[in-house]
């Protein structure tokens, strides 16, 4: 028997989202995942504003992976206006990006811990352990970025605050202890994840799909051609009242739906062979945390950041050149595209966030699984709905 199930509000995820499922004999035949939070209009509200304020405004798209929007936005404007950024500033931005990756991925572990630990006591112990690591990531964000959430130091042209050697040393001193903690909590996480899969009777390839992968870099982000993105409207894709309610676009890369995120980065840049299924998403995310921490240590140990890190040139362009800024956010590739006119005002702004790209991947991954387990797939992708409906 065929029936349609519409779920609204997926618990243990960020934001307000929904699922549209076509179910036959309890098995999902077709699924759509979509955002239901209102469109805030960051692309339109920036028009006519001085491009130097864009990183500050766009960082407020998301409170979970804040700094990636600031970085992508700053890079987009720099590329549109041809502003050279001091290489050390780029390195510090990479540190910020990686810190937010750890900070955010661990927040996701906290969120899914409700699923993982049947015992409240164990759950709280796990959260306590993870918070210890998040505290360090928060320290990095606060020290380098200025604030934990919505870093104001990321500017068009660089970073407004240098990182003096003693401050850097202070951060480096802590890393070893934090790394130990991170590894411990990851092994607890891995064990309880296996237990969950067993408890729920989920197969190893639960939630697999055959889509391609999209990522630009392992840690920071490399330019992509923005023309390759096309967007489907919910009005074109969905039926009934959902046309009027769904608030995200469905982007395609090269005309095809793709998956972005930790698995895409692993496949494209680490030579990883995907096993399929969503369990490995959790695990790859956990591994990325450890790699990110090691990378932070590497950057900080090998660089000096106590000079001027900010090219204060006023951005100005011809209003036609499309500047593209890319950052590898925790959830995948975050792309901002901007056009700046001669006076430095923004005349065009477009944002593609990783969760938007992953909507199709979630939909595909739902195919063939039991309708009662759909939420596990959604959670594994760690969707950030507010980003998607920016």
């Amino acid at each position, binding site marked *: 028997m065929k029936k349609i199930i519409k779920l609204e509000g997926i618990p243990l995820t960020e934001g307000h989202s929904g699922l549209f499922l076509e179910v036959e004999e309890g098995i999902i035949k077709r699924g759509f995942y979509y955002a239901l939070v209102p*469109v805030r209009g960051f692309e*339109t509200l920036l028009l006519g504003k001085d491009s130097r304020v864009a990183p500050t405004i766009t960082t407020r798209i998301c409170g979970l992976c804040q700094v990636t929007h600031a970085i992508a936005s700053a890079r987009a404007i720099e590329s549109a206006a041809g502003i050279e950024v001091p290489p050390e500033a780029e390195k510090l931005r990479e540190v910020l990006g990686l810190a937010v990756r750890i900070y955010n991925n661990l927040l996701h572990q906290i969120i899914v811990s409700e699923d993982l630990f049947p015992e409240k006591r164990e759950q709280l112990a796990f959260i306590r352990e993870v918070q*210890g690591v998040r505290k360090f990531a928060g320290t990095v964000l606060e020290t380098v970025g200025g604030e934990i959430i919505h870093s104001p130091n990321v500017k068009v042209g660089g970073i407004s605050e240098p990182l003096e050697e003693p401050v850097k040393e202070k951060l480096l001193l802590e890393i070893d202890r934090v790394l130990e903690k991170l590894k411990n909590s990851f092994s607890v996480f891995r064990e309880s994840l296996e237990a969950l899969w067993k408890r729920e009777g989920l197969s190893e390839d639960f939630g697999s799909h055959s889509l391609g992968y999209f990522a630009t870099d392992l840690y920071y982000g490399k330019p992509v051609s923005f023309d390759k993105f096309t967007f489907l409207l919910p009005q074109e894709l969905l039926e009934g009242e959902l046309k009027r309610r769904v608030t995200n676009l469905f982007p395609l890369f090269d005309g095809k739906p793709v998956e972005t995120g930790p698995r895409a980065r692993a496949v494209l840049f680490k030579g990883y062979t995907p096993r399929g299924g969503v369990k490995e998403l959790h695990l790859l995310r956990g591994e990325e945390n450890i790699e990110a921490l090691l990378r932070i240590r590497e950057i900080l140990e090998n660089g000096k950041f106590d000079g001027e890190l900010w090219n204060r040139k006023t951005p100005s362009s011809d209003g036609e050149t499309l500047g593209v800024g890319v950052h590898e956010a925790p959830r995948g590739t975050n792309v901002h595209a901007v056009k700046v006119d001669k006076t430095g005002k923004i005349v065009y702004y477009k944002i593609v966030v990783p969760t938007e790209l992953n909507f199709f991947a979630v939909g595909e991954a739902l195919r063939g699984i039991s309708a009662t387990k759909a939420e596990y797939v959604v959670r594994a992708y760690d969707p950030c709905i507010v980003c998607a409906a920016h």
Partner: protein
Amino acid sequence: MFYRDKLSFEDEEFKLKVGFLHFSSCSGCQVAFFDMFEEAVEILDTVELVYSNMLTKRRDLPRMDVAFVEGALCIEDPHHLHLVKELQKKAKLIVAVGGCASFGGVRRLSCGNQLPQPQHQSFVPITEVDLVKPKVKYAIPGCPPNPSLLYSFLLALLEINEDFLLPFELMTFSTRASGMDIFVEVVNKGFCVGCGTCSTACPTRAITYNYECSRPAFNPGLCVYCGSCLAACPQSFKPYPQPTYT
């Protein structure tokens, strides 16, 4: 007391039922609660978290003693209209957390016309929604509010520290906030001592410090209307119990 009306103070079993929900926002305020790090775990242990899209498995809104609300309400979104009615029925007391919920915040800039729902353009902070206004007892400024501010606030709420809570109560009556407040209410009124607290409080560095004139310098383009500056200014309201003037 407002949220303990049926229970006696000696009731050991009493656990404050807390919910966290969001309208149109970035979720940053909810994340700021987690950024108390280890302390957040203690608080999760002392109160009963009955609703949060991130931490609980509930889909419907349960009855709660205190609802922490972040974000502004989008008039064009039917879900928000439904949610605010539910909130009015289910919450005994509402706390507006952060700039968007309290004063409009960065949502004040929204102008709509963006795909796929170009009609989403009108956002109002919950302090402006008359339906729930009587229940909105406190507004916390900031974008996002500091974890330490949220921590102190939660403690004050649990202990019913009126002295601490009063300014936050007064802030619900202000539906507008910006860095201009510092000029209108403090500098123009001859109250600026040049201490620089507003520039420290500004989360976007829209307020910097003019060393030549020893006054704040305000760059309106960067302001996100979070209300931190005036709230932090030592001249704005009776600051703290320490020195008394009587």
